[in-house]
């Protein structure tokens, strides 16, 4: 069974400061990890993913995430936060077991960027 933990319900950051949204995962095979963002009353937008290769993955809107196999983590980061980054962020995982496995999502983290 696969699972994702996002330990923080909410993260508050001042505009211009760096931000980190935490994610840890558990899978039986090799992990494929994703970050999605959801704005109010909207669908999920893909930000970035880790499949293999470089542990630092760069994605949309200046976001990046670092895959850490030993800590089973895939934290989302951005060097300088914008007010427009305020949204609900989901970490998700599927494994390399094959088949059309759906994504297993974390419970989401509300990111609030204060002006």
């Amino acid at each position, binding site marked *: 069974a696969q699972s994702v933990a996002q330990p923080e319900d909410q993260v508050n950051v001042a505009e211009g400061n760096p931000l980190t949204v935490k994610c840890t995962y558990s899978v039986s095979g090799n992990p*494929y990890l*994703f970050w*999605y963002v*959801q704005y109010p009353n*909207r*669908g*999920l*937008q*893909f930000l970035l*993913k880790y*499949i293999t290769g470089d542990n630092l993955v760069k994605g949309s809107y200046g976001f990046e995430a670092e895959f850490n196999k030993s800590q089973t983590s895939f934290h989302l980061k951005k060097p300088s936060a914008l007010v427009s980054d305020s949204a*609900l962020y*989901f970490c998700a995982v*599927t494994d*390399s077991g*094959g*088949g*059309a*496995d*759906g*994504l*297993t*999502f974390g*419970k*989401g983290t509300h990111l609030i960027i204060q002006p």
Partner: protein
Amino acid sequence: DTAVSQTPKYLVTQMGNDKSIKCEQNLGHDTMYWYKQDSKKFLKIMFSYNNKELIINETVPNRFSPKSPDKAHLNLHINSLELGDSAVYFCASSRGPGPDTQYFGPGTRLTVL
């Protein structure tokens, strides 16, 4: 052009009714999914289809029946609606199964009264 579209966007109905939600993708993808997002924003996979064949059927009541007439469409029919079915339902598609990025539709907010 909308990549993954769903209709309707909002659906309000009475308990016991039967309703359908339609999903279409114009990305040429082979795999489509239905997810349910509850009032606490928790997202859970319901079904997955690959090339019109059912791959995943999570623990979902039999009242929920997906139908895939072709690779570009995955509809969700719900019989005998219950209060607990109230949620936002998202359709998604990916090029194939496994690690391919899933692209989500805008969601259908279902309210059962």
